[in-house]
C-alpha cells in the first residue's frame, strides 16, 4: 500500500476542468484559440496522465495513488485510487480526448467553445468514474458524464439528434437511478460508501443474504448493462451514435461504453460474487447473443455510422463474456479488449466522421469507390477495420483471443459461439469497406473529394501505430492488469467458498491508507455471540 500522499489523481481528474476555465475566458468567436487551447490542454492532460504509468507498481494488486479525504459527513469520502484495471482506462481516456478534439477541428463550426468545454468536462467525469473508490463519488462522476454527452449529441449532432439525445439520457438515467438506490441500500447495510471497506464488510463480517445480494447485483448490473450496452438494452446506442458528432461518437464508443464494463469489474463482481456467479450463465448467453446479434444487424445496415455502432454491441459482448467467464485470462482479455475497442472503434468513428465532413452523409450508398480519390484515407480505414475484425497481430486479436482462451477453460460452447463473432465481423466490415471504398466511383460528387489532410493523417496514423503496438506488445499492457484481475478473482473465490456463517472477528478493518473502524453498531453486533 502506498502511503505517501499523492495528488496526482486529483490533478489528472480535474485538469481538464481547469482548462475549461481557461476556455471560458476566451471570446466565443475566437475559434482558433479555443481549439488550440483545448487541444493543448488535452495533450497536457495526456502527458500528465502518463506520470501515472511511471509511478505505477505493476506487481501490486492494491489501489495505488490513493487519496482519501473526508467529504460529506462521516461516511462519504473523497477516495480515489487506481489499480491495474483502471490505470489503462484512464490513459485511454486521456489519449482519445486529444484525438477527439483534433478530429473536430474543422467539422465543428458553430458554438465551438461549448463543444470543447463539453469534451473536456466529459473527460474529467470519465476519469473520475475510473478513479473513484467511493460509491458516492463514483456515482457523481457517473451521472455527470451524461450531461456533456447529451449536449454533444443534441447540439452538434445530426438529423435525429434530439430523439437520440433524449433517448440516450433517459435510457442511461433509468439504469443509474436504480443503481443509486442500490448504493444507498449498501450504505444502509454497511454504514459506509467506501468501496474497499464495503467489500471487506460484505466479505468478512456481514455477508448479504442471497436474495438481497441478487437484488443489489441486479440494480448495479442493470445500470452497467445499459451502459455497455448488453443485448437487449442496446437500442439507445445506434441512435446515439448515428446522430452524435464524430468526437461524441469517439468518446461514447471509446470510453463511455467502458464505464459499464468497468463498473461490472469494479462493483458487480467483488461486491456480489455469489449473485454474479448465479447469474453468469444468463449474462454469458446475453453477451453471446449480443455478439452474434450485433454483428448480424450491423451487416445489414445502410448507414455507415449505425453499422459501426452495432459493431460496438458485438464487441462489447466479448468484453462482458470475458468478465463473466471468471477466469484470469479472460478477464485480462476483457480489460484489454476494452482498450482495444476504445482505440479501434474510436478510430472507425473518426474515419466515418471524416467521410461525413466531406459528404455530409453516412449512407453507404452515397459512397462507393472512394479508394480512387482518397487512397490514403481508405488504406487507413481498412487497417483500422482489420484491427476491429481481430486480425492478428493487431490489437483486436489479442483481446478476443485472450477472452476466448480464458472463456474456453470453463465454457467450451460460449467460446465457440463467441468465436463466430470473428467471422461475422469480417463480413460486415469488409462488406462495408467494399461498398465504401472499392469499385468504380458511383457518385459523381465523390470523384473530387480530397484525400486525408495532414491533420487527418496524424490522427489516424497515431491510432494505427497504437493499434499495431498494442497488437505486438500486449504484455506491456496485460501484465500490470494481472495482479488486480487475479486479486479480484481470488477474492470472489474466497467468498464463494466460505460458508455463509463463518464470520470473521477482528473489528477494525484495515483497508487503504486509513484504518477504518466499523460503525459501532456493527461492531457491537459482531461482539455478540
Amino acid at each position, binding site marked *: 500500500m502506498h502511503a505517501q500522499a499523492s495528488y496526482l489523481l486529483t490533478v489528472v481528474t480535474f485538469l481538464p476542468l481547469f482548462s475549461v476555465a481557461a476556455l471560458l475566458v476566451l471570446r*466565443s468567436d475566437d475559434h482558433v484559440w479555443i481549439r488550440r487551447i483545448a487541444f493543448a490542454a488535452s495533450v497536457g492532460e495526456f502527458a500528465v496522465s502518463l506520470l501515472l504509468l511511471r509511478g505505477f507498481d505493476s506487481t501490486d494488486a492494491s489501489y495505488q495513488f490513493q487519496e482519501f479525504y473526508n467529504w460529506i459527513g462521516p461516511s462519504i469520502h473523497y477516495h480515489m485510487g487506481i489499480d491495474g484495471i483502471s490505470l489503462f482506462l484512464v490513459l485511454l481516456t486521456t489519449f482519445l480526448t486529444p484525438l477527439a478534439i483534433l478530429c473536430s477541428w474543422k467539422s465543428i463550426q458553430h458554438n465551438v467553445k*461549448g463543444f470543447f468545454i463539453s469534451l473536456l468536462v466529459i473527460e474529467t467525469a470519465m476519469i473520475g468514474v475510473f478513479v473513484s473508490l467511493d460509491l458516492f463519488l463514483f456515482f*457523481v462522476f457517473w451521472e455527470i458524464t451524461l450531461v456533456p454527452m447529451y449536449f454533444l449529441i443534441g447540439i452538434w449532432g445530426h438529423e435525429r439528434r434530439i430523439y437520440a439525445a433524449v433517448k440516450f439520457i433517459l435510457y442511461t438515467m433509468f439504469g443509474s437511478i436504480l443503481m443509486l438506490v442500490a448504493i444507498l441500500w449498501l*450504505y*444502509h447495510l454497511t454504514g459506509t460508501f467506501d468501496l474497499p471497506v464495503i467489500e471487506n464488510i460484505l466479505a468478512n463480517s456481514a455477508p448479504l443474504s442471497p436474495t438481497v445480494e441478487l437484488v443489489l447485483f441486479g440494480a448495479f448490473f442493470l445500470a452497467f448493462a445499459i451502459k455497455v450496452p448488453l443485448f437487449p438494452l442496446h437500442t439507445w446506442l445506434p441512435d446515439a451514435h448515428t446522430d452524435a458528432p464524430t468526437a461524441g461518437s469517439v468518446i461514447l464508443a471509446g470510453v463511455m461504453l467502458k464505464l459499464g464494463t468497468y463498473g461490472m469489474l469494479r462493483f458487480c463482481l467483488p461486491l456480489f460474487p455469489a449473485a454474479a456467479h448465479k447469474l453468469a450463465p444468463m449474462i454469458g448467453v446475453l453477451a453471446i447473443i449480443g455478439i452474434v446479434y450485433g454483428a448480424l444487424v450491423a451487416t445489414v445496415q445502410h448507414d455507415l455510422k449505425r453499422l459501426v455502432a452495432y459493431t460496438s454491441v458485438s464487441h462489447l459482448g466479448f468484453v462482458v463474456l470475458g468478465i463473466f467467464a471468471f477466469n484470469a485470462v479472460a478477464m485480462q482479455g476483457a480489460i484489454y479488449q476494452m482498450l482495444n475497442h476504445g482505440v479501434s472503434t474510436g478510430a472507425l468513428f473518426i474515419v466515418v466522421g471524416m467521410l461525413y465532413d466531406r459528404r455530409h452523409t453516412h449512407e453507404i450508398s452515397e459512397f462507393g469507390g472512394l479508394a480512387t480519390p482518397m487512397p490514403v484515407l481508405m488504406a487507413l480505414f481498412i487497417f483500422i477495420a482489420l484491427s476491429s475484425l481481430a486480425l492478428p497481430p493487431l490489437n483486436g486479436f489479442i483481446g478476443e483471443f485472450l477472452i476466448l482462451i480464458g472463456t474456453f477453460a470453463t465454457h467450451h460452447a460460449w467460446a465457440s459461439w463467441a468465436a463466430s463473432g470473428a467471422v461475422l465481423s469480417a463480413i460486415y466490415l469488409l462488406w462495408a469497406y467494399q461498398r465504401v471504398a472499392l469499385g468504380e466511383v458511383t457518385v459523381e460528387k465523390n470523384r473530387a473529394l480530397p484525400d486525408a489532410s495532414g491533420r487527418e493523417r496524424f490522427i489516424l496514423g497515431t491510432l494505427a501505430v497504437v493499434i499495431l503496438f498494442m497488437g505486438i506488445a500486449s504484455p506491456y499492457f496485460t501484465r500490470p492488469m494481472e495482479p488486480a484481475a487475479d486479486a479480484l478473482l481470488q477474492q470472489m473465490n474466497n467468498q464463494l467458498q466460505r460458508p455463509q456463517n463463518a464470520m470473521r472477528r477482528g473489528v477494525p478493518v484495515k483497508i487503504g491508507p486509513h484504518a477504518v473502524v466499523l460503525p459501532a*453498531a456493527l461492531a457491537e453486533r459482531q461482539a455478540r455471540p
Partner: protein
Amino acid sequence: MTAVTISLPEQIANLRRIAPEIVLCIFGMIVMIVDPFVKPASRRALGWLAFAGTLVALASVHVAAAEMGFAYSRLISTDNFSIFVHVIVIVAAGLAILGSIDYLDREGIQRGEYYALVLFATAGMGILAGANELITAFIGLEMSSISSYILCGFRRKAKESNEAAMKYFLLGSFATAFFLYGIAMIYGSTGTTFIDAAKAELERQLAANGHFPALAILGLGLIFVGLGFKVVAAPFQVYAPDVYEGAPSPVTALLASAPKAATFALMIRIFYVSFHSAGDIWFWVIWISAVLTMFIGNLGALVQTNVKRMLAYSSIAHAGYILVAFAASTELGIAAVLFYLAAYVLMKVGAFLVVTHVGQEGEKRLNLQDYAGLGMKQPALAACFSLFLLALLGLPATGGFLGKFFAFQGALDSARAHGGWVVALVIIAAVNSVIGAYYYVRVIVAMYFWPQSSDYTPTRVAPALVVALFIAAIGTLYLGIVPGRVHSLAESAAHSLPLQSAGSNGPSNAIVIAPPQNAR
C-alpha cells in the same frame, strides 16, 4: 390565575429569539411608511430596501441563534431547527424580492405594499418554523397565507392573476379550516396545544390505554389536510398548478419554495414530535401521499407545454420526494427533508426567476416554444436555467442530487421500521425521477437544440435578477459539491427537536445487518 411578571432580561431574550420576525415586520412597516413619500418612478428603491430587510433579517438570525430557547411562554421555540428553516425562508424571500424589482416595473405594478407583504409573509413563515404551539402556528400560517393570497392577485388586471388569487384564497381557507379543526381535536383530546406538551400527554395516554386517542389521530389527519395543502401533497395538490401559473412569476417563485419549507417545518414538529409514537400509523398516510404526489406531479408535468405550469407540476413532484424523506420518520429523515428544502428552494426560485425574465411583458412568453434557441441568444441565462433544471432533475454535483440522495438515504435508513415498503417507496421515487428527467431535459432541448425562434428579442437581464440568479446558482452548486456543512447543520437541526421520549431507542443510525443465514 396569578399574574406572571416577566423580568426585563427575559423580555430582551424573548425579543432576541424572534429577532428575524421583528426585523422583517419592521422593515415591512418601513417600506409601507416610506412608500407614500417616494415618487412612483423610484419605487424600485423600495425593493432594494426590502431586500436589505431580508439581509438584516438573515443577520438577525445570528442574534436568534445566540439565544436559543423557548420564547414567549413556550409559544416559540428558537432551536437549530427553527434557525435552519428561517435561513431557507429568508433566502427564498430575498431572492424573490430581487426577482420582483424589475418585474414589477415591467408589469407596471411597482408598489411598496408588495414588498411589505413579502416581508410579512416571510415573518409568518418564520413563526411557522419556530412555533411550539398550534395556535401560534395557525397565526403564522395565516400571516403567510393571507399575504400570499394578496400577492397572487397582485397583477390586478390580469385575469389569470385574479383567478389564481381566488382559487388560492378559497381553497387555502378551506384547507385552513380543516387544519384548525384538527388543532381543536388535538386540543380536545390532550388538553393542550403545545407541541411538546401534547407529545407528553399523548404518550401518557398511550401508556395508560395502550392506544392513541382516536380523536387526536383524527385531528392529525385533518392537520395533514391543511398542511398537506400548503406543501402540495396529493391529493391536495390540485390547486397548485393553477395558482402557480396564474400568480405573478416572482410570487410563484416565493410560493413554490418558502411556504413549503416553513410548512414542512411545522409538519415535522407535529408529526415527528407530537405524534412521534404514532409513526407507524402516519407513515402510511405519508407513503400513499408521497406516491400519489410524485406520480401526479411528474406525469402531469410530462405533458405540459407551458414552462411555468410545468415547473408548477415539478414542484408537486418535489413535494413528493420530500415526503419520501419525511416517511423515514427518523432524525436522518428530518435532516434529509431540511437539506432537500434548502436545495429545493434555491433551484426552484432560480428556475421561476428565469421564467420571470423570459416571460417578458404581460407574462406572454411562457411556452416551451418561446425558449427555443435561448441557449444561443442568452447563453448565460440559459446556462443558469439548465443548471436549475438539472438540479431539479437530480443531477450529481447539484444540490438537487444531494437532496434526493439524502432523502432516499433517510428513507432507506428506516427500512428496519417499515420494511420493504419504504424500499418500494424509494424505488418508486427513483423511477419517478427518471420520468421527471424527461420534461426537464425537454426544456434544455428547446433551449439548445431547437432553432431560434425569430420573434423573440431578448431583453437584458436586470442586475437585480443577475444577482438573484447568481446566488441561486452558486448555492445550488455549493450544496451539490460541498454539502457537508449544510447537511451537518440540518442534522443538528434535526437533533435539536425533542423527538425522543424517555426510554425509547436512540436514533437508529441504522446499521442493519442481514441476519446470518443459519445462526444458531
